[in-house]
Structures are given as C-alpha cells and as structure tokens.
C-alpha cells in the first residue's frame, strides 16, 4: 500500500498496495514532459488524447498565470490536476525521496514483477519543511496535500473495490475496526466518465498523533490505475483550514487516460 511513511505500521497488513512503491524519476516531473516534449506515461496511447491533455495543461498553466491566488499541481502525462493556494510549496523530487514517498529502485522492481507501482507523486504544504528531514509530520499544525497515481498490479486490480480505495493512504478500514479512526463525513461515491471512486473524510490515529484528512480516490474502468489526492493535518488544523482543504479537494481533476 502506498501508505504515508508514518502511518501506523501495525495495521499495514490490510493494505492492498505495496509499501513505499515508487517510480522512475522520468515519470515524476510534469516539467520533464513540458521541456522535452516526451510523454513517457502515454506510450502506446492515442496522440489525440495526449494532445488533448497537453492542451488542457497549457490552458491550466495560462489560467494559473492569470491568477496570483492558486498554483496548479499535477501531471499532464498522468492526466491529473488540482489547485493549491499560491502560498503552498510543492516539494521537489529530492525531498520526496528523503520523505520516503519516492523510491525509484522499488518502483522499477515492482513494475518488473507485475506488482503495483507509482507513476506519479506530489506533496505540498504551506510549510516548506514539513518533511525535509524524514517522513512528513501528517498530524502537525500545517496542512498538506498528497497526490499520487498508481498502476495496479494483477492481484491489486482483482481485489480493488470502492471500499479498498479509501485505504490507499491510511488503512482506515482496519483503523476503524480497531476504534482508531472515525469518518468525518459520509462516503460519497463518484462516477466521472469511465472513472469511479470515493470521496471520504476521516480522523485517524497515526504514530505522531491524530490526523484528519479528506481524500478523493478514482479508479479507471479496467481497474489498472488509481488517482488519489489526500489533504489533511491535525484535527484542530483541519477544522481551521477546512475551507481551503475543501477547495483543494474540489479542484481535483482527473482526465485520465484512454481505457
């Protein structure tokens, strides 16, 4: 499972994806695609779809340049975008590796073995030092946004359900059964084109304290790729920043890839 590094490892057994799976660096940067014109994530897909996504990215970038209040994050090659307040910092790849969110070696191995592996990871916070020295402090007073796209391996694809989508960041199903997590809102089932998914909000215990977060997770129709955005912080921070967090989650857009 792509649990965040400081999730309670004692409940990791409920995970459906391998821990710490990551991706070659070439996949991780939307900047790579823009600069080189190469789109490694879209190999084998129609050029029309790629052009459409690229056009969307250009429009998004142009629109973002018109506004000083938001920053667009995401990956054009993975067809995922969301808006962050301008004051938030998008962490670079070195920091993501330091935080344990990215591990190119493990990703390559997982891909070679046919297991699930990450195609894209981003992490942002108004606090630029939230995770610069190891795992990020999810239960602190600074909000964070964690986005990833994952290719599902055979067994994960077979067992993926709307219920298991909510366990992609923290194993809330197991935590709930243990009394260590509670929903903050009713689960919303989402259908967006050929994608299906859930929007959930939970307060859960982690090793560093309680964390509240809102999460949208979508899976494509063949059930071989998931797009996830989780935004959260400590329960008191979550309440204080609820409007901002809702805006970020509301902005989560997945154009996806052709099924």
């Amino acid at each position, binding site marked *: 499972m792509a649990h965040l590094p400081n999730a309670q490892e004692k409940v990791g057994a409920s995970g459906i994806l391998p821990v710490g799976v990551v991706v070659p660096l070439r996949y991780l940067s939307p900047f790579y695609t823009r600069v080189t014109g190469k789109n490694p994530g879209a190999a084998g897909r129609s050029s029309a779809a790629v052009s459409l996504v690229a056009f969307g990215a250009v429009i998004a970038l142009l629109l973002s340049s018109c506004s000083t209040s938001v920053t667009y994050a995401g990956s054009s090659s993975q067809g995922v975008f969301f808006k962050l307040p301008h004051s938030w910092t998008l962490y670079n790849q070195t920091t993501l590796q330091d935080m344990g969110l990215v591990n190119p070696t493990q990703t390559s191995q997982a891909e070679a073995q046919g297991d699930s592996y990450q195609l894209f990871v981003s992490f942002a916070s108004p606090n630029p030092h939230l995770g610069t020295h190891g795992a990020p402090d999810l239960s602190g007073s600074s909000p964070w946004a964690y986005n990833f796209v994952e290719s599902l391996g055979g067994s994960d694809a077979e067992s993926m359900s709307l219920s298991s989508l909510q366990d992609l960041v923290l194993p809330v199903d197991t935590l709930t059964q243990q009394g260590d997590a509670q929903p903050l809102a009713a689960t919303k089932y989402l259908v967006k084109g050929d994608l299906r998914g859930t929007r959930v909000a939970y307060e859960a215990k982690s090793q560093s304290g309680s964390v509240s977060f809102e999460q949208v997770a979508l899976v494509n129709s*063949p059930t071989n790729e998931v797009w996830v955005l989780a935004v959260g912080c400590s329960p008191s921070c979550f309440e204080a920043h609820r409007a901002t967090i809702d805006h970020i989650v509301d902005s989560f857009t997945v154009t996806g890839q052709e099924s």
Partner: protein
Amino acid sequence: MRWSPRTVFNSRGWRPALAVAGVLALASALAACSGNHVVASSSQQFYASVPSGWKVFEAPSLKNSSLESLISTKPQFLEVASASPRPRATDAFTSSRYPWAIAMVRPLSPAEQSQLSFESMSDVLVPVDELSQLGDNVQLLSQPTEQVNGPLHGIVLAVQLQGPSGGQIAYQQSTWVNGATNKIWLLMVGCSPSCYQQQQSAISSVMSSFLVPDNKGK
C-alpha cells in the same frame, strides 16, 4: 419448434431508450434472420439471443426453483431459457442434458457496491468462492477474464460445480457492472458437463450475443 421473439420494454428516459430500442430492433431483426430469439429488456439495457429452439420463461415461472433459492435480491429483470425438448423454467441451473440460460439484472446493495471487485464478481449469483472454501468440488473451466466497455466493467468465467439439486453443472457466466457500481447484468449459460462439452458452440454463441449498451453515467 419456433417461438416468437420476445422483448420487454419499460422505457423511462426516451433518449437512451430510443438508442437502446434501435440497438434492440437491429438485434431483433438479425436474430429473426438467424432464427434466434431475443432475450432483452430495454429499460434494463439487457440484450442476448438464444437459438430459436430454446423456450424463454419469465420470472414468475421460477417459483420454487433451485435458481430462486440463489437469488437474494429482487432482480429488475429475470428470464431463463431452456433448450430441452420438454422445456421447463426449473431447468435453469440444473445438470440438464440440454443447455439453459439465465438472464438477470439486479441492483447491488450498499454493501455490495462498496465491496465488489473483479474477484468477487464470480460470486454474484452462485457463491463460487464460498463453496470452494467449504470444500465443495469447484473447478474453474476457464480463468476469469476481465471485460471493459466504457464505464462498464466485468468478468467472464466458466465453472463446474455440484448443483443444488445434485449432479454436476458446468456453466459460463458473463457479468457487467456499471460505473456507479450499483447495478449488475448477468448472463449464465450451462448444463451438465457432458452437454457443456457437446454444446460448446451453441453456448458460446449465446454468450457472445450478450450486450449491455455503454450508456455514460448509467
């Protein structure tokens, strides 16, 4: 023996209904040309065709059948067909020497909606996994194959197991689930294992006729 084509229409939205009706009309025409019967529901967007020698029965005919005992949620559409020279609705899901077909559309409960995966789709009518875990002799005749059509997704598989009224049953099953994961379409065609071998061509033909139109958002 020839039977007239049967189609059930309970339209709601006229646009999707019109599109589906068009598909069904074309399918019916093709079925008529080939001497097949159409097993279809416009309102539930289900279409399949069976050979003209098969008799089609509607849901009320299934009272007290072994199939009825398998159905926990009231279907939105249920018909069965039998190729037996003395066809009965209760032929469905038995080790008959003649093929039968089960066509069903039903809603998924909130729990099923949440938990359904490719893995668990094989269990929507017959609890194959559970039977296997209980020690029943359940044999996969073909590995489950995933199928995708727009937001619709599902599996096709073939299984042999002990029937509820005794005797081995071999069947193929195709299931489709919508994007909202709140509705399932199922077609099962089977009979005794020896019949299954002999009638493979007819069974495959019925299975390949199964169509659930891809209506976005459904």
